[in-house]
């Protein structure tokens, strides 16, 4: 085995220029592929983190029908008991209750359909990072009565600014249409233009007064010590409290969950695309090497080298060649990702377009050790596939090639 590996390794360097060109292609291809996967991962993770930290949280509690129907009377029963339980559970880091309903926002310019979110400024600030989206004015801890903060897009559409008034109209818990006048105290801009257009925030206590004669909450957002605890916490809540549905962020946002799955699939797809192209390079190099060594391989078979050993030597040669390039490509990609994961990849020129899609323009690429292993596995698999044909041709060489006098 050691001898076969030695032959394979030395064969690679018989033609340093030829092997070098292929190695350079492998290094460049893998570097580009790994960094691309890292950037995609960074984008996806950024989106996931942003959505969890700014709004969704690790787990949420609702009335079982609220998410489907959205009516204000579908509020959470046993709210105080649930809060008491959350308060005493060590897995829960923070939580916040929200009062939510759909309604209309009217300004002198136009009327828009919006989701009205009544929040407790203090617990929301402790639980989520939404307050960091404020780009103008004050947050809801302002002294201004009937305060509202709206998205930048909505403000632009209505030609509104801080200090202006708008009217919100919605159904109360008794199914009666009601409305209230609110002062714009702040304007926010999140990563999603569509979110900014569709959501407004008011204080929950003022909102509850308009909604009915009793405190009602439609959503409790919960941040946990670890994201992995979401499943067990929601299971505990669902078994302990009747008339509610506790869900993890993956259940609440299947599209986010799908993004996580997509990240895993993208690693394989991108590596396969790059390696499929490189496979032809490997195939070409190995076939050229084989045609040059017909006599030599004929000699090896003549003197008694078994075909399995000849086959293995050719396979070793291509795998070692590819692995050399892969290691170099990985080191380069690891360094690039490490650097960019600290400083971030700033795509400011695409900031507007990215915001339209709900993405931030600064990306922090990341790649887990498991993903490096997946990429390596795909590389080895495709290399083996590309090497089989030259190796089969190799063992079919007639030993008489060794005796040819030309």
């Amino acid at each position, binding site marked *: 085995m050691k*001898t076969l590996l030695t*032959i394979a390794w*030395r*064969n690679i360097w*018989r033609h340093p220029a030829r092997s070098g060109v292929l190695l350079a292609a492998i290094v460049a291809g893998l570097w580009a592929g790994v960094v691309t996967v890292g950037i995609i991962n960074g984008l996806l993770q950024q989106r996931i983190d942003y959505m969890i930290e700014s709004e969704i949280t690790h787990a949420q509690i609702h009335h079982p029908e609220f998410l489907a129907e959205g009516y204000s009377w579908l509020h959470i029963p046993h709210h105080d008991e649930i809060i008491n339980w959350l308060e005493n559970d060590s897995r829960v880091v923070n939580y916040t209750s929200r009062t939510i309903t759909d309604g209309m926002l009217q300004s002198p310019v136009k009327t828009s359909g919006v989701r009205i979110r009544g929040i407790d400024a203090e617990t929301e600030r402790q639980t989520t990072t939404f307050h960091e989206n404020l780009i103008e004015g004050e947050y809801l801890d302002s002294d201004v009565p009937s305060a509202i903060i709206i998205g930048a897009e909505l403000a632009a559409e209505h030609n509104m600014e801080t200090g202006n008034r708008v009217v919100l109209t919605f159904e109360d818990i008794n199914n009666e249409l009601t409305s209230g006048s609110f002062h714009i105290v702040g304007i926010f801009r999140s990563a999603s233009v569509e979110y900014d257009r569709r959501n407004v925030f008011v204080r929950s206590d003022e909102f509850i007064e308009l909604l009915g004669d009793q405190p009602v909450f439609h959503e409790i957002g919960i941040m946990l010590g670890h994201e992995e605890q979401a499943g067990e916490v929601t299971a505990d809540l669902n078994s302990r409290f009747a008339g509610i549905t506790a869900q993890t962020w993956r259940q609440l946002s299947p599209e986010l969950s799908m993004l996580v799955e997509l990240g895993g699939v993208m690693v394989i797809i991108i590596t396969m695309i790059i390696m499929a192209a490189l496979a032809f390079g490997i195939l070409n190099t190995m076939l050229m090497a084989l045609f040059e060594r017909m*006599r*030599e391989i004929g*000699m*090896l*078979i*003549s*003197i*008694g*080298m*078994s*075909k399995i*050993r000849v086959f293995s030597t050719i396979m070793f040669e291509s795998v070692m060649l590819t692995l050399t390039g892969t290691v170099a490509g990985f080191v380069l990609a690891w360094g690039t990702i490490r650097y960019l994961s600290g400083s971030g990849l700033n795509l400011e020129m695409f900031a507007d377009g990215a915001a339209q899609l709900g993405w931030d323009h600064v990306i922090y690429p990341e790649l887990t050790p498991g993903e490096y292993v997946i990429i390596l596995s795909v590389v080895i698999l495709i290399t083996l596939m590309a090497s089989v044909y030259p190796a089969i041709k190799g063992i079919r060489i007639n*030993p*008489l090639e*060794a*005796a040819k*006098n030309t």
Partner: protein
Amino acid sequence: MAIVQTKNLSKVYNPDTVPVHALRDVSISIEKGEFTSIVGPSGSGKTTLLNMLGGLDKPSSGSVWVNGKEITSMKESDLIDFRLYNIGFVFQHYNLIPVFTAHENVSFIMLLQNRSKKEIKERADELLEEVGLGDRKNARPVEMSGGQQQRVAVARALASEPKFILADEPTANLDSTSAMNLLDIMSRMNREQNVTFVFSTHDQRVIDRARRVITMVDGAIHKDEYQNVEETKTG
């Protein structure tokens, strides 16, 4: 018992189109310790016969026996294994492994035989000394002259301790001095260690050193004669 024997060996290329009779009913028997040269003009069938004796090619009819075993009906994989332990080869173009040193080239065949590291090293050292290349064992083929490469090839052929060694035009690419030097080594091995050599050649100097000369014409044995050889050592 003959080391190698052929019985009514024939080889026809292109039997269905334009038949070329490379060998016609060749029956020879070579005993242990013989130093035999197969001679004849180009196209007379020397190389074809040598390939048959080495199990590198299959005859159209007839059989080849090596050390009492018929090799013509062997499976290809068995034949490869058989060659490893029974037949040594010296090729006209030396055919050393270019990425290996002289020592590694000689060792390689013993590695294929799964011998112990110690034995391989000692025997490779000993053989390289015997062919006069003890000081060149770390040289790669590209760093050696043709004569030196061919001497490594002889050492490699001997390394596996074969029943006989086949050498196809071993001096064809060598200058006069190198050719005589190689012949000295081969005849000394034959004389002192009773190694059996069978080689094809055009080279009169080689023919002069052979104790048995088989002359082929048009694929058939024209003459098979023994001759007295004066053993000389050339520089």
